[in-house]
């Protein structure tokens, strides 16, 4: 099961890298989304995909699932959700203000001697 997950994560990272290297802002943002999805899946897989009882003392099972990676992912998902929302608004505002969504044209500034 872990091997399948690793391949999925690899595909997500590859897609994210491809998208983040493109010029359109929207594609870059989708790329960052995919990247964080990959990172979250990796976190889950790294904790081990064990089959076990829920981590409750009352269950009294032989083996429990590790709850820590799930707590970490929950936190990381919330953070990346917030950041992505901010990015989207920022991209929209910059599109309005600068008049382009091409990152190549978002360079240069006031004069340098």
């Amino acid at each position, binding site marked *: 099961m872990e091997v399948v997950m690793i391949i999925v994560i690899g595909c997500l990272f590859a897609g994210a890298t491809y998208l983040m290297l493109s010029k359109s802002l929207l594609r870059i943002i989708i790329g*960052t989304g995919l*990247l964080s999805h990959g990172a979250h899946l990796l976190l889950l*897989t*790294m*904790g081990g995909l064990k089959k076990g009882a829920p981590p409750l003392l009352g269950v009294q099972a032989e083996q429990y699932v590790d709850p820590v990676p799930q707590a970490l992912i929950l936190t990381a998902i919330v953070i*990346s959700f917030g*950041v992505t929302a*901010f990015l989207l608004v920022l991209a929209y505002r910059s599109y309005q203000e600068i008049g382009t969504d091409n990152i190549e044209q*978002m360079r240069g500034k006031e004069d340098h*001697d």
Partner: protein
Amino acid sequence: MTNAVIFPIAIPLTTAVILIFCVKSLKAQKVISLVSAGALIAAGAWLVRLVDHEGVQKLDVGNWPAPFGITLVSDMLSALLVLTTSVIALAGLLYSFYTIDSKQASMYYYVFFQFLIVGVNGAFSTGDIFNLFVFYEVMLMSSYALLVHGGTKIQLQETMKYMIINVFSSALFVIAVGYLYAVTGTLNMAHLAVRISGAENTAVLTVICLLFLIVFGLKGALFPFYVWMPGAYSAPPSAVLALFGGLLTKVGVYSILRTFSLIFRQDIGYTHTILAWLAMATIVLGVIGAVAYRDMRQIAIYNIVAAIGVMAFGISLMTKESLEGTIFYLLQDMVMKTALFFIVGAIAYVAGTNQLGRFSGLLGSYPLLGWAVFLTALALSGIPPFSGFIGKALIIRAAFEKGQLLFALIVLLSSLLVLYSVMKIFIQSCWGEARGYEQKRVAPLYVPIVALLALAVLYGIGAEFVRPYIAQAAATLADPSLYIESVLKE
């Protein structure tokens, strides 16, 4: 166990929440922010005193015992950094009062300001590596908002790039934490140190260590990850820039210092050599940038890069003396860089431009400003008796003792060029005939500038008084067992 550790996080957090509700009244915002900044300094000083008297302080949040729950830990290093952050926060507030107009302030400026302090203090005080990530995000989120605050074209454009690079590095942070958890099965820094010191497979740990170096290097502007900085830092108003220059990159340095001295000691010969080479490249490219530009802001920004290199070099040596020097240098650099950006901002305010050569002769009308630049140049390059001297002296002495002559010489040479680059601002803006600037009222701006400079001078002259504290901080870093024992004991 003590609650003292959480006050530096709780005070700005509470203030931020209160400020959200009184965003309409500028006066209320200012008063509340000021009171909170004062309380923060008191809390920081109390924490330093407590750590000095009773050793490393920790707080198991929610009463979950140490390796299982999230632990906040303050050793002397954390406590000193928290105190310095509070002082910078107060100075930043005073500067903001006169440079941020009421329209901008009513758009939650002071709220983001407080949240930034929450993130920075949290990152300094946490003893859990995933919690460090969370506080990084708190800090970054506020920094995005502050960077784009005002919404000019240049700010939007630079914030976009700054955000993308930071989102990428955050993803990398999560990945690195995932790997570390898979290998060691714990996230508590002290527990990690115990597990790693007994680990057999150190190769994978070295890979993880380098991943963390990339993550922290990206935040801390280490070569080759500093390229985002000159662009991003050229956009925001001076008050924001000073905060960023004084606090944000230093959090990256602190993280490297903490992880490289506490956790990743398994292969010092390899990882710390890489850090030393990166530090050298950072110093060289930093001073080249500082010397090359004629834009005051860019000169100051590249000065940050050069200083980061010096600190990273101090960390890479990993002797007690070099760590002491690094901490000395880190604390003074936070204060001095903030002061430098305040001064550059004040000069740009009266001259209307950041470009050197378009104005001159400030010394006639603004003598205090001129001498402030002069003093900053001396302090930054490390001329005794000012604040930069003792840190650099300790680092270089440690380098000579370890036989790294070349690296020590590069650090010495870089000091000379740093002196030249800031002196260039002094000569070109202050000497010559008076032209190209207006008479404006800058007296309120002098308050934070003079306060920070006075602090820096006292820090340099009173080094004997400060040294016991710094030595205590360095001792905990050089011998992690002190830290580990106090965290993991019941």
